Every structure is written in structure tokens, then in C-alpha cells.
């Protein structure tokens, strides 16, 4: 399989670096390599580049430069936000944490960690589309709530939360709101004031930047403790010699993403719709997951009756198509997608889940190739199935039928 023929539809997992990003990073490996904490020329140049990148990221989300902390990625940003807010809150007697069941594990695991260490954890309900309703947030907030963390858009089903509604509730209660915007940034507009969040996580490799670098926005005045300690970098909030080449890459990727977002997202949305409609045309007994309209432009998530996700991925891979599944067997963890389960999708349905996430190089030809290949794959697997699940979960949703 030459790269030429390969069809990459797993952009939610990671994206390739944009060549312009690589070009932007290159001088920072060998030429401008100084430690930004040093005072000589080589250090000053690195520092200047670092602060330039900080400004770029700040501008990209409507923040001030001093509100940006560079991190090693989305997971560190999320961990830092949750644990850092909880520890700061604890100093003021707070001991309650609120999050949702559809968060990335980078939020859920720190929350569980804090729970094991004496915090009380409330997991909010979501509806069948994966939406968190603001009134549910309101119900659970307490005087001692240290942090609310609700993701902006979901990595599996693409659902986008009504964050500006939710933030009204948290603001009123005076509780800091963190949002994981790792999947959103570069795909849909992300502005911290419009969203009303106090903290926000992004990760470079999700928008054509390098892996191993991300950022955490912390609204001025928000009390937060560091996660990685041992140096005065990032205004004493994140120690370690700054990953200057990575940070430059992050900033360049953000710059490109913003400049091209409108055009790219419109194009991807069209392809996405072509794919969804096509899947309902070429396959029987499938269902569509996530919100019909409040969703990322690049995400398609379906469940296919009577087949298992990983098995589909294997055949797709043999055809050069890279996709993803929330089935237990594809996760290596024995658990089907916690996101699909939280949305009320039965385990046996989640078993057949399939996710395609499109990217800026995705073409109509690629989509059509997927639509051409997938029926035979599903047929083949269905022929091996000992048992047909009841069909009630598998039908075209009305909103989609109306469109078709």
C-alpha cells in the first residue's frame, strides 16, 4: 500500500504536521536553540520567539499572553487544570469536583485520582446525543465546588456542548469552569470569552502541529497550582526547559488553522455529509451517533448491526483506509466506549461502532472509495455472525431522513 493510495480518516486520533509547521520549527532545533531562561543573545532570541508564540496562541483564542501556559499536550493540560484547580480549591476548603461521563480519560482519570484522595466527584448526565444540559450543572453546584470540567467537543461522537450557556451557570456560582477544547481548536471557533470558560486545553497534534506540545489557558485571577514543579518557567506555573521548537510548531499550526478554518471546515462538512448519507445508502441497519447539528464538522460516528468494530477496521486497513472504533476489542481495555455507553447506547450496539474523522487533505474520491469498499466488508462479516441483534437500534434518524 503506497501512501498515495492510503486514506487517512482518523484525524481525531492525530494529524500529520503541516509542512509549513515543520519549516517553521526547523531553525529552532539547531540555530535558535538557546535556553529561554538565559540572558545571553542565544537565550534572548529563544525567549523572544517563545513570547511571540504565546501571543499567537493567546490571540487565537481571545486571551492575553500571560494567560497561556505551554504544556506537553492535551493530557497534561487537562491534568493540570483538574488537579491544579482542585489543589488550589482545597486550600480554601473546597472539595467537590464536577465533570461529565463523556470526557476524555485525561479529565476522568485525574478526577478519579482526586476522588480517591478525598474529593467528592459528581458526574453529570448527558442526553442521547451526548449533550450536557446547563440546568443539570446548576443542580449540582455547591459552595465547595472547586472545579467544573466539561469538554467543548467530544472526540468520539463530535458533539459540541452549549458551553456559553453552561458558563453562565458556573459564573453565577463563582466556580471555575475548565473545558477540553482539544478536538475543537482549528475546527470550530474557540474564544474563551464567548465560551465563558476559565480554563481551556488544546493539543498541537490535533491541528497539524507536532506531538508532545499543547497549551492551557488560565483566565487571569484564577487560582491554580502547578502540576510540574522545579523552575520559574511559564511564570512559575510549569517548570522545565521550554520545548521551543514544539511551541513554535504549535503557534504556526494555530496560525494556519485559523487562517484556513472557514474554508476548510466548510469543505470538510460537505464531505462529511456525503459520507454519512452515503453510508446510509450503501449499508442497511446502521445508526448514527452524536448530535445531528451540534457537532464537529469532521466527525462521523455510526454503529453497524451484527459486526464488531475492530473487525471492520482490519478489513478497512487492508484496503488502505484508517478509521477508528469504540468497540471493546479495539480499545485493548475490554470496555466499549464509555462515551457511547453514557449516551445510552447498549453495549451490543457499541460493539459495532465505527468512527471516521476527516481532515484537510480528505477528498471526495477518498470518501467515495470508502463508500465503495465498506458494503463488501460489512457483508463478509455479517455472513459470519451467529446471531442477529434486534433491529430497533438501527435506523436512519429522522433529521437525516429529512435531509436525504
Amino acid at each position, binding site marked *: 500500500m503506497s501512501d498515495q493510495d492510503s486514506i487517512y480518516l482518523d484525524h481525531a486520533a492525530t494529524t500529520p504536521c503541516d509542512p509549513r509547521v515543520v519549516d517553521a520549527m526547523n531553525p529552532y532545533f539547531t540555530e535558535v536553540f538557546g535556553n529561554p531562561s538565559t540572558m545571553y543573545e542565544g537565550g534572548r532570541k529563544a525567549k523572544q520567539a517563545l513570547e511571540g508564540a504565546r501571543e499567537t496562541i493567546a490571540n487565537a483564542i481571545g486571551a492575553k499572553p500571560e494567560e497561556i501556559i505551554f504544556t506537553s499536550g492535551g493530557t497534561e493540560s487537562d491534568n493540570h487544570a483538574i488537579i491544579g484547580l482542585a489543589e488550589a480549591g482545597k486550600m480554601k476548603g473546597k472539595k467537590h469536583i464536577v465533570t461529565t461521563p463523556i470526557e476524555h480519560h485525561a479529565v476522568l482519570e485525574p478526577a478519579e485520582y482526586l476522588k480517591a484522595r478525598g474529593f467528592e466527584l459528581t458526574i453529570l448526565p448527558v442526553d442521547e446525543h451526548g449533550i450536557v444540559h446547563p440546568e443539570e450543572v446548576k443542580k449540582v453546584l455547591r459552595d465547595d465546588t472547586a472545579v467544573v470540567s466539561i469538554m467543548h467537543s467530544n472526540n468520539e461522537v463530535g458533539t459540541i456542548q452549549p458551553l456559553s450557556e453552561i458558563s453562565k451557570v458556573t459564573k453565577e456560582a463563582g466556580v471555575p469552569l475548565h473545558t477540553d477544547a482539544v478536538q475543537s481548536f482549528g475546527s470550530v471557533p474557540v474564544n474563551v470569552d464567548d465560551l465563558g470558560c476559565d480554563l481551556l486545553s488544546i493539543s498541537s497534534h490535533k491541528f497539524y502541529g507536532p506531538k508532545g506540545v499543547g497549551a492551557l489557558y488560565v483566565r487571569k485571577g484564577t487560582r491554580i497550582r502547578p502540576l510540574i514543579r522545579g523552575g520559574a518557567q511559564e511564570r512559575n506555573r510549569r517548570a522545565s526547559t521550554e520545548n521551543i521548537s514544539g511551541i513554535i510548531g504549535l503557534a504556526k499550526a494555530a496560525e494556519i488553522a485559523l487562517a484556513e478554518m472557514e474554508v476548510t471546515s466548510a469543505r470538510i462538512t460537505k464531505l462529511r455529509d456525503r459520507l454519512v448519507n452515503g453510508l446510509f445508502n450503501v449499508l442497511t441497519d446502521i445508526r448514527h451517533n452524536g448530535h445531528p447539528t451540534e457537532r464537529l464538522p469532521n466527525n462521523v460516528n455510526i454503529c453497524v448491526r451484527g459486526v*464488531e468494530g475492530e473487525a471492520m477496521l482490519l478489513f478497512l486497513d487492508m484496503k488502505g483506509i484508517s478509521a477508528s472504533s469504540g*468497540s471493546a476489542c479495539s480499545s485493548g481495555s475490554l470496555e466499549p466506549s464509555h462515551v457511547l455507553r453514557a449516551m445510552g447506547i447498549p*453495549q451490543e450496539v457499541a460493539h459495532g461502532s465505527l468512527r471516521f474523522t476527516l481532515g484537510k487533505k480528505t477528498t471526495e474520491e477518498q470518501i467515495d472509495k470508502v463508500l465503495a469498499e465498506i458494503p463488501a466488508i460489512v457483508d463478509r462479516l455479517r455472513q459470519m455472525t*451467529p446471531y442477529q441483534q434486534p433491529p430497533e437500534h438501527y435506523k436512519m434518524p429522522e433529521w437525516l431522513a429529512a435531509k436525504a
Partner: protein
Amino acid sequence: MYSDKVLDHFANPRNVGVIEDADGMGEVGNPTCGDLMKITINVADDKTISDIKFQTLGCGAAIATSSVVTEMAMGLELDDALAITKQQIADELGGLPPEKLHCSVLAADGLADAIKDYRSKG
């Protein structure tokens, strides 16, 4: 991640289907991951497995182990077929990724279930 042999059995599974009026039938499922398997056997001379077919709803490892266990069992005496372990199945496939080992339990269990069914009718 999967060996070539696993991928071969996955993509070209042997003995897929259901034997009509089979002498024994096994039906097993993995409640945690949701995989399901049905296995049917015919037994000759009340002694050896003369025919065997399977159907599996499951991942690559589940399908490949199902397929290979039918090959392993075909022609075996019942007690020998019963003695097939999940480790032997994995070995026959040239190994399985550690997180996939549990999938091979389905194939061993399904075969055992079919033999038990046959014997219960005895």
C-alpha cells in the same frame, strides 16, 4: 500487531457456517467485550470430530481463533479436542497481542460447549 497467520485466518476464515442437523452445538459469548460464537460439530463413531463449522461476531482475534480452532479440532478424538487450551490456540496462530489473549478463550470454550452438547444428547 497481529501475526500474518492471524490475519490470514481472519481474512480467510476456514469452516465458516452452520452444520445442518449437527451432532453437537456450542454457543458462547464474552459478556465483557460482547463477542459471540456458535460452533457446530458432527461426530463419527462416537469418537472423532468429522465435521466442524463456526460463526463468530467479534474482533479479528475472535474470528481468527475461531477459525484456527476448527482446523485444530477437525479429525481429533473428542477428549483430545476438549484438551485444547487457549494458549495452544494462540500458539497455533503464532501468538496474539497480550491484550487479545482473552479472545481465544471464546474458541476453546465454544468447542468444549459443542462437545458437551453432543455428549449430553448421548
